[in-house]
């Protein structure tokens, strides 16, 4: 049931090669300047709506990257926060970006500063609005909860990797009546965000959101390549299921589509003139 080598079923090598080509070709296309299309996910409309309602209330907006260590997910979370900051800069709505990681804090300062410049409002940038509270899980959580309650925050945006302490953010946000939008790749936290927030961006959608906003070639190309792979999987399932219905589940062709040992069974059957 498991592969020690691709030779256990060369179908695996073929499918990996096709997906690798799809990803690499699209990355180089994007790097070459081609305009790859990524659709605007509904989550972004939810973000804009939350921004609109928070400006009416005139109260601050919080952005929380959670305990995300510096890495791919943290960089993309900051891309989304940059977009939000540029939107709220038009209405001079105050913002607070609260981090639990010193490296993320340093990079966030830079990102927010660029956001205000790009929005043409460098005067609004205040270094105190980006804060490093604590690198300890529950100390960070109580720090964020305290701020949300004290400043009666209007909207709260949570993007990145989250663990159990996210419940405290969501609950405090609900108590002060804040609009809450979350986006995370940590699937075990998604159910709680869906139950507690106004809208939740789930799993791969998180990468699509930051790709849409940053137009970063490697990310765009990779997402388009992954879509091709998903279509390939769906096609294999459809063809395979119909074939299994007509020819039976134990047919060598079914074994070929992914079962270790399936390659030899298939070709022995075909060459054996069955």
């Amino acid at each position, binding site marked *: 049931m498991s592969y*020690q*080598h*691709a*030779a256990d079923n060369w179908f695996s*090598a073929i499918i*990996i090669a096709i*997906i*690798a080509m799809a*990803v*690499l070709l699209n*990355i180089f296309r994007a790097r070459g300047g081609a305009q790859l299309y990524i659709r605007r996910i509904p989550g972004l409309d939810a973000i804009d709506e939350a921004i609109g309602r928070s400006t009416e209330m005139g109260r601050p907006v919080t952005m929380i990257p959670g305990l995300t260590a510096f*890495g*791919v997910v943290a*960089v993309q979370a900051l891309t989304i926060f940059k977009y939000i900051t540029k939107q709220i800069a038009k209405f001079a709505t105050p913002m607070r970006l609260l981090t639990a990681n010193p490296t993320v804090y340093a990079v966030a300062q830079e990102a927010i500063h660029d956001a205000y410049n790009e929005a043409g409002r460098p005067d609004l940038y205040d270094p105190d609005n980006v804060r490093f509270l604590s690198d300890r899980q*529950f100390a960070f959580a109580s720090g964020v909860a305290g701020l949300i309650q004290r400043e009666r925050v209007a909207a709260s945006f949570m993007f990145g990797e989250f663990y*159990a*302490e996210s*419940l*405290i953010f*969501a*609950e405090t*946000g*609900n*108590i002060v009546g804040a609009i809450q939008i979350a986006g995370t790749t940590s*699937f075990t936290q998604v*159910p*709680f965000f*869906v*139950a*507690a927030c*106004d809208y939740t961006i789930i*799993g*791969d959608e998180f*990468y699509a959101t930051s790709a849409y906003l940053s137009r970063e070639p*490697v990310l765009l190309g*990779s997402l388009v*390549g*992954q879509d091709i*792979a*998903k279509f390939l*999987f769906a096609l294999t399932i459809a063809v395979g299921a119909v074939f299994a219905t007509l020819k039976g589940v134990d047919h060598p062709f079914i074994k070929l589509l992914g079962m270790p040992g399936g390659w030899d069974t298939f070709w022995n059957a075909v060459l054996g003139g069955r």
Partner: protein
Amino acid sequence: MWQIDTTTLSGKVSMALIVLGAFVLAFGLIPVLQTLPPRGRRALIAVVTFLVGAFFAAEFFMPLTQDDKNYLTPGIQPAQNALQIIGSLALGLGTYGLVRLHLRNVVQKRGQWGYSVVLLIAFVTMATFSIWNTLAEKRILARTPLLDRGFSLLFDYTLIQLDAAMFSIIAFYIYSAAYRAFRIRSIEASILMFTAMVVMIGIVPLGAYMSEQLFGLPREVPPNAHPFSLEAILYSLRLPEIADWILKQLNAPVQRAIEFGVGIGGLAMAIRLWLSLERGIT
């Protein structure tokens, strides 16, 4: 050829020299490496990453010479042990960073540095006992009552208790969130909540008890009953059966679709990391 007989004195001396030489080589190489320009450095890192990745990828993709082995397979096992060592050095990095941070807090008398002293004393004491205990197990050091009693107090009755207590707090946050955060405000949230409630009751003995006592559903089905007979249908309406069906028939395909998304995303990420296409991260 790869082995030196360390039982003889000359063997021991030559081995000591080799160890010394290895350290001198590693740290002597640093000034040479420093002369590399930034572009050269990135190239060196990219080449190292690519070569290590290529070795494991090649071992997977190359055709087999005899049963389950190809030309590169013998190299896998020693490479694994080397990665185990590097992995543990990387794990030690976290500890190094933590100790370094709190030492600085104490030296610079940064706010609340008293707690950093507590942390460092706990660190040193536990490190001593843990290393001593592990060495005693391997019969390299003697096992004394002081070790047994000290390690047991620090491990079984302090570290274990603190760790267990720290993670049990989350239940309190879930309970207060249940009261004030979990809103059934949209179709999505209501689907999620309804499924969660059925599963929560269906998988515990209470679900079976309620199905039998409150709804009077049959406890089991006669083996030869027709799948669409009344008993079979009533039996399948029991809460445990419904919960198992939701988990097996509705939840499994959803998890598999998520798996495919994660797997394809993982493959794309592995390729990007292998070829150092990911900018700004490594």
